């Protein structure tokens, strides 16, 4: 096992101290999907769905460990507050994402952080507050099937994405398939996801032409729909939770992996690299 990050020299490495940072991961000759996530269920992993909430008791989602919501107080200068969420999901987007993660990583723990649904106005500060909370909670994976185009939030989002990366929280974010600048998926500390058209939920590709780094299943996906049902849908919003779930599977089997190492495992097991199906 790797040493705890606190034991490691932070800013420099003295002569002859290479032993002190020996990494305990035993890489096989070839990283296979079986090594990476064969038999994994996501058990022990906490996945946060930063979205519109999750419908309680949806059969595709099952148990939700905790649900919180972010909202701004009444006044103009009020801070964004975190409250326990009893409203569930107002639009269905978060439930759909949660259902995909549950399907592929059935034993992971799901937490809902609702940052959407209270109107579009002021959604930027609420998104930031929600992401900050999720990063502070130290989730193993945060699923963000959304982005902002507001440049004024880019710097703060970047800092949060980097903090998550160094604190071993994997931030998985939907890329845009349009030529617009949006965040946080463009940051290299994030795992960004676009869609492919294959029907297999475990098929994913590494993109050698970033900024979009991975393609996961996003076309014709049967998603959880409000009211306990399902519906067919397409979008990067649904490719992203496929990748979040795969991250949860790998980390549940190899909890010592940092986000950097995890990204390497994803690269080595991608279908267009070395991943066998």
């Amino acid at each position, binding site marked *: 096992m790797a040493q705890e990050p606190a034991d490691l020299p932070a800013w420099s490495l003295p002569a002859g101290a290479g032993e002190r940072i020996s990494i305990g991961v035993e890489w096989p000759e070839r990283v296979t999907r079986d090594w990476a996530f064969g038999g994994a269920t996501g058990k022990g992993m906490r996945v946060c769905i930063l979205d519109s909430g999750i419908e309680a008791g949806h059969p595709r989602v099952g148990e939700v460990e905790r649900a919180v919501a972010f909202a701004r107080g009444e006044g103009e200068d009020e801070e964004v507050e975190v409250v326990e969420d009893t409203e569930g999901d107002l639009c269905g987007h978060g439930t759909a994402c949660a259902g995909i993660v549950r399907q592929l990583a059935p034993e992971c723990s799901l937490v809902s952080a609702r940052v959407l649904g209270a109107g579009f*106005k002021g959604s930027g500060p609420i998104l930031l507050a929600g992401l900050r909370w999720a990063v502070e909670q130290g989730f193993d994976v945060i699923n963000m099937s959304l982005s902002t185009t507001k440049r004024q939030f880019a710097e703060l989002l970047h800092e949060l994405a980097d903090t998550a990366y160094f604190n071993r929280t994997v931030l998985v974010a939907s890329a845009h398939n349009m030529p617009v600048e*949006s965040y946080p998926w463009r940051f290299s500390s994030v795992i960004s996801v676009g869609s492919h058209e294959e029907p297999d939920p475990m098929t994913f590709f590494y993109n050698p032409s970033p900024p979009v780094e991975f393609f996961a299943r996003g076309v014709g996906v049967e998603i959880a729909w409000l009211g306990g049902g399902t519906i067919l849908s397409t979008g990067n919003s649904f490719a992203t939770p496929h990748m979040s779930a795969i991250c949860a599977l790998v980390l549940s089997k190899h909890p010592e992996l940092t986000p950097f190492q995890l990204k390497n495992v994803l690269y080595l097991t991608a279908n267009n690299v070395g991943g066998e199906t």
Partner: protein
Amino acid sequence: MSDLRAAVAAGALGSEQSYRELLQSIVEVARSIFDARASSVFLFDEESDELVFEAVAGEGAGDLVGQRFPSSTGIAGWVLVTRQPLVVEELDKDPRFAREAAESTGFVPKGLMAVPLLHEDNALGVLEVLDRPQKAAFSLAEMELLGKFANEAAIALDLLQKARAARTVLEDEGAEADALARFAARLDEAEPEKREAALQLLDALGKLLRER
């Protein structure tokens, strides 16, 4: 003196009309290309935090323009708040959605494609294409094509909003516009030498205003 104001106002109003026609033509073409039952553009009204039907082609054209609903509800709302394009099929299977759709637009689509209209760092609205024929599974190529229409619609919507803002300025800040219009009228009447001198003075005034 009110001639200039009238001219500027006519320009703003005229361009507003042109941009509306441009938006209408974008939804008409989107509907034809996808062979769809309807296509619409929603404008995000920041003031009221609502989405407003701004242009509609096909089913619902004529009745829906101007109708409003809260910015984060419905599939157009998802797309606006997440800024992610989305395709949903088999919508008619969902009785709740079917009822809501029928109440607000008068018909229930089987499926729809929706894409956010992003311009610079703003989300201006949403473009939707309803009921494309489901001969084949939806493809990412169609999503890309929809994205191209969205770019056009976003530019048209941006111009439309600017034209409306210009008109509001003319209507609300008549006093300042009047002062400028009076100046323009005097300039127009002045003899060439005086006109030249006035323009130099104006140029100097512009420089002074730029300095802090």
